[in-house]
């Protein structure tokens, strides 16, 4: 049997676990590992400019592919910098393994140089974590970490490795386990058949149904089954922010996103629904508005792989614990077996009602904002232009704020894994590094990062990573010269007292900044040139392009839930109009 050092074992085990791309940043405690990386060619390591970005890139890669993302950081500040990235992945249930170097075991607890208790500091934001104490345990721990990260409800796993464990002078036999079994971890995939039967009966008897689907459908690769089910029953579908793309965005049965900035038709239909089929969604507070007022007439069927998501905030009448793909297939089989159809008359009436809502205030039946003209570019029109130029086929990452909501509302995703954003944690700075991860996974696809002049500056150093590793992503900056979402709230709730959301002429010249990194910068200040410049941007297939688009700084995101104490249907539709 071949004897190998801990560093070599780690690299080989990562490869064996399926890692092709490792995003990272070296440092003292990770030096043995980096030396092992230098001496091999199985893994491609991508040097980022900040550990947070390395983790976001691994995250973007995971979201775009469904594979486990992998990142490598050193101890101390490397580990703490990774924390925001790990928390982002945790909140959105992204499969990821983060390997961190640690000081040697004899120094642990001594406040050694660059020592931080990574297992402790990451504990509330990981699915699980390990500290590897012996060379012999590395391969098995990596196998376990990937198994845990990718099964059940996915999530990030941290593997902390003290430097002495990767010592090149200590060699042990390499053995990667053929099968991984953890006695205390056996996630349920198949739903309870009796519960599914009840759910099917309730679903078929519905008169005003809505299918409310979230990120779990994408995770479980269940989009096909969800679409089949919705089509079979002719039921309306709404998606959460995380679920966009799990049902075709341009389809007639799609009501748009629901929740705080969801469409009027989606939120109103939810409020009046008699049966809600929640699939892989978790009744987040950004969806439900006031839980006590949530959908008062609805019988709620809830499919989720994580039992803790069921009845956590909103009580589920028919809970089904299982993987969305497996449960939806079982439901489809049972619906077909019954040979029954929903009440067509009631359903017809429900659709007429929904179409009336759409016509009245829907985002896609008419323009709900003042038109752009001259130097006034509406941010919504930038997203529409992006949609048009990329023919709705781009992978779109986003940062956090108004631009994120405009992108979610106006870019209609027809396929899963195309919309990549930090939904749960709401991490500014996510967009650019995530786009790098997506581009690495799909080099031939158009990858756009929709961002703002605030968010982009939180990880702007990654423009350098794009140069080094030839990652030609397109950065679509909706520059409203303010922290727009905070400004919107200050307008609505704080008498337009703009506390610390303006830069006082300190913004950089983004075009020259992009050029300094070797990229192309394009400034857009007139609506007439928007489409043309957008087309120019995407025509440069092999260049990273920074689009600095000056948008109307006074624009707000609508609809918006009336809060606190509002129900799903209580919405601001514009600055002056509410339901």
């Amino acid at each position, binding site marked *: 049997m071949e004897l190998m050092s801990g560093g070599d074992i780690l690299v080989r085990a990562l490869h064996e676990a399926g890692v092709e791309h490792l995003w990272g940043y070296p440092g003292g405690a990770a030096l043995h590992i980096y030396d092992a990386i230098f001496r091999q060619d199985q893994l491609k390591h991508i040097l980022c400019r900040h550990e947070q970005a390395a983790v976001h890139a691994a995250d973007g890669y995971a979201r775009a592919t469904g594979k486990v993302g992998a990142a490598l950081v050193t101890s101390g500040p490397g580990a703490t910098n990774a924390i925001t990235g790990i928390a982002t992945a945790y909140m959105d249930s992204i499969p990821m393994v983060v390997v961190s170097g640690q000081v040697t075991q004899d120094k642990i607890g001594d406040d050694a140089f660059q020592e931080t208790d990574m*297992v402790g500091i990451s*504990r509330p934001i990981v699915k*699980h974590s390990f500290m590897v104490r012996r060379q012999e345990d590395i391969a098995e721990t990596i196998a376990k970490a990937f198994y845990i990260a990718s099964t059940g409800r996915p999530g990030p796993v941290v593997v902390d490795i003290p430097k002495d464990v990767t010592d090149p002078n200590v060699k042990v036999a390499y053995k990667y386990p053929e099968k991984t079994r*953890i006695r*205390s971890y056996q996630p349920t995939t198949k739903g309870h058949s009796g519960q599914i039967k009840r759910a099917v009966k309730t679903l078929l008897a519905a008169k005003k149904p809505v299918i409310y689907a979230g990120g779990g459908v994408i995770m479980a690769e269940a989009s096909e089954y969800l679409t089949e089910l919705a089509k079979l029953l002719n039921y309306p579908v709404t998606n959460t922010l995380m679920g966009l793309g799990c049902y075709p965005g341009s389809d007639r049965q799609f009501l748009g996103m629901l929740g705080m900035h969801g469409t009027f038709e989606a939120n109103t239909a939810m409020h009046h629904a008699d049966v809600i089929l929640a699939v892989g969604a978790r009744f987040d507070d950004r969806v439900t508005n006031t839980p006590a007022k949530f959908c008062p007439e609805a019988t709620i069927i809830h499919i989720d792989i*994580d039992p803790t998501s069921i009845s*956590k905030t909103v009580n589920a009448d028919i809970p089904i614990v299982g993987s969305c793909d497996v449960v939806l297939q079982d439901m489809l089989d049972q619906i077909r077996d019954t040979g029954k159809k929903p009440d067509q008359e009631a359903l017809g009436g429900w659709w007429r009602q929904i179409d009336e809502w759409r016509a009245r205030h829907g985002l896609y039946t008419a323009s709900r904002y003042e038109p752009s003209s001259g130097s006034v570019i509406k941010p919504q029109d930038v997203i529409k232009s992006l949609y048009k130029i990329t023919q709705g086929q781009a992978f779109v990452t986003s940062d956090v704020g108004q631009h994120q909501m405009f992108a979610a509302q106006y870019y209609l995703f027809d396929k899963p894994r195309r919309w990549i954003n930090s939904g749960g944690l709401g991490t500014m700075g996510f967009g650019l590094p995530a786009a790098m991860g997506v581009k690495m996974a799909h080099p031939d696809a158009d990858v756009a990062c929709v961002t703002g002049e605030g968010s982009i500056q939180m990880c702007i150093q990654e423009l350098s990573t794009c140069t080094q590793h030839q990652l030609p992503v397109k950065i679509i900056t909706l520059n409203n010269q303010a922290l727009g979402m905070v400004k919107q709230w200050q307008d609505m709730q704080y008498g337009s007292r703009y506390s610390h959301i303006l830069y006082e002429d300190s913004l950089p010249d983004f075009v020259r900044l992009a050029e300094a990194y070797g990229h192309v910068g394009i400034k857009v200040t007139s609506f007439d040139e928007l489409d043309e410049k957008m087309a120019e941007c995407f025509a440069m297939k092999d260049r990273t392009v920074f689009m600095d688009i000056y948008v109307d700084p006074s624009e707000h995101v609508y609809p918006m839930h009336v809060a606190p104490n509002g129900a799903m249907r209580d919405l601001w539709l514009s600055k002056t109009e509410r339901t």
Partner: protein
Amino acid sequence: MRRIISILMENEPGALSRVVGLFSQRGYNIDSLTVAPIEDQSLSRLTLTTTGDDKIIEQITKQLNKLIDVVKVIDLTDGPHVERELMLLKVRAGGAQRAEIKRTVDIFRGQIVDVSTTGYTVQIAGASSKLDAFIAALPEADIVEVARTGVSGLSRGDKSLRL
């Protein structure tokens, strides 16, 4: 409502901190906690008492089950069970009081495990409410020191918490 939750978990470093961390992270209370390895040294049994309505307790048990190191969780208060807590208590007992305190210890079926010229160290086991009653029966000013183990328990009958 007060609940006694027993957890069978991997006897590994960090497992306890994951359980305790979960409670503080999610805003649940731990009123008492006791943990030790069982006869199978690869496992530990942790018993804790907490309070909450049914919805909270359901979330607590689900969240505990979600921890990778946790093998099994049981809410002992769901059914008939035996509950015990051990207390060591040091009490001043001099002069005329000495006999009176001895009588109180006997009534509660406690044992005096150490004696000095000024007082007793008493060992007493039972349900937490019995220990509370014993403390209440002593003159407060004379209690020098109290050490309680926290609650441990088992289900009655054939029901058990094992692999």
